[in-house]
């Protein structure tokens, strides 16, 4: 009985965030444009600098000679990363500003249900975006994607998603108690951007930044996905093992942050704006 009640609550949260999302139609268009912007930019930079569709330099460093496929796979991971960092965290903060977060938290529903409902909608959305992107990329930019390899990459992406959600939960839990969350989220977003390895192999970063990138779930996901798509699971055991480790770590961290946030809310209360 309790379980079905909780599921109904989850359904309620999910439909709510879905509706709110749909109400920003123009932003959806500009979101989707972002993908074309990134991938298109990558293609034009490549052609403008080398005049070719293949890069021996990239091949040597990463095993990918087709820099466009490299960028498309990176962008997919980046898309997921941003969904759980900015999309998710902003939605919670927006509700805090609007004052509706307190109402949601005052309901008998478990607080984790609220977060999960938001997260589920975002996973779904990310897949919808991908379904829009991939065929269009193939048509417009002539991206070469081997369907078998590509589908092999999806479980790895989902594995990485666990860690990204954990980090998103941690951020959301902490940000709620900051005086001015806006710039803090921006800074985190930029870390995701710079350290996700979406547009370039993190090997070319300075050492300290490489370590930081390795310590966040995004770059390990990018690397594992790329490796699996090109070389299959067996050749990617190292990358996958590391990803399992980092995802578990962040899932745990997210859970702890959530517990802390739960306790904190009772002690200091949510701010009213």
């Amino acid at each position, binding site marked *: 009985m309790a379980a079905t009640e909780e599921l109904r609550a989850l359904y309620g949260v999910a439909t709510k965030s879905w509706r709110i999302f749909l109400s920003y139609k123009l932003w959806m268009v500009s979101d989707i444009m972002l993908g074309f912007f990134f991938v298109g930019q990558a293609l034009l930079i490549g052609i403008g600098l080398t005049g070719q569709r293949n890069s021996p330099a990239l091949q040597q460093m990463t095993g990918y000679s087709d820099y466009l496929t490299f960028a498309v796979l990176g962008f997919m991971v980046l898309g997921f990363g941003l969904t759980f960092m900015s999309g998710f965290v902003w939605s919670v903060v927006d509700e805090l500003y609007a004052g509706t977060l307190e109402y949601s938290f005052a309901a008998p529903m478990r607080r984790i249900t609220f977060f999960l409902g938001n997260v589920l909608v975002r996973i779904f959305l990310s897949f919808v975006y991908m379904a829009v992107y991939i065929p269009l990329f193939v048509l417009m930019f002539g991206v070469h994607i081997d369907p078998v390899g590509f589908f092999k990459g999806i479980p790895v992406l989902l594995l990485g998603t666990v860690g990204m959600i954990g980090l998103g939960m941690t951020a959301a839990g902490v940000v709620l108690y900051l005086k001015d969350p806006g710039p803090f989220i921006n800074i985190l977003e*930029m870390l995701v951007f710079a350290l996700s390895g979406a547009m370039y192999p993190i090997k070319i970063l300075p050492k300290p930044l490489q370590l930081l990138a390795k310590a966040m779930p995004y770059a390990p996901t990018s690397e594992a996905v790329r490796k699996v798509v090109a070389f299959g699971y067996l050749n990617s055991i190292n990358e996958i093992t590391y990803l399992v480790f980092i995802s578990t770590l962040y899932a745990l961290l997210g859970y702890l942050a959530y517990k802390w946030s739960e306790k904190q809310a009772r002690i200091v209360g949510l701010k009213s704006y």
Partner: protein
Amino acid sequence: MPLIAIIEKELRMFFRYPLRVFSAVLVGIVFLLQFVFFGQAVLGGRYSPLLASSTGIGDYPTYALVGYVLWWLSVSPMEAYVWGIRRELQRGTFETNIAAPIRITELLLGLALSWLIMDSVLMMIVFAFGILIFGISLTFSILLKSLPILLLSFLAFLGFGFIFAGLVMMLKHIGPFAQIFEFAMLFFSGVFFPLNVMPKAIIEFSKILPLTHSVTAIRGIFVGKTYAEIAPSITWLLLLVLVYWLVGYILFRWAERITRVMGYGGY
């Protein structure tokens, strides 16, 4: 001077939050690094003979840094109108300002100038960072020679942005539209890649964007060209300053007439 008062007010609000300034600088840097690092990874180095033959600049970091900084500055007045006015509308302060005896055009110009100053400060930091991290060689005379072109570009950017002032006042919320447009400018004006990879029609179209000429002129100076050699770009810029200020002003007057019927508030 009311204009100074507006600038002082905007700067005060912006620099009051150091974390916001820091995050803005970080956004500026990360965005730049994305594409420069990508280009370098594909090239396997920093020098592209192809780029050199099509644009005269072979060093990719220099090419991208100049383009990027100018792009950011070129959309600054537009952002001032799109986000600055919207913020004042949301805050409810827009009408309080309009009710003062100051001219509305002066009010808007003040807003755009403040944003241009703030963005210039940000871009100076990003530029210095880029020079350092990419090890770009730069002489004092290049900077000095760039300055007049930069000022002329600012004039053109202000006029270009003014087209949006009227639109925002009338339509209130054009954020997503503006964002798409800003990104499109990256493609049209050859910021991260040489324009000659684009179709002919787009190359022609790009001539009406001030950024295209501003970028060409300043990149020229960076590789040691004289003013005489970049004269076509300068002429274009002068022409565009006139055209955009005129068109922007007429469009604004028209939008203002309609807004006075609708009301300035409406949030």
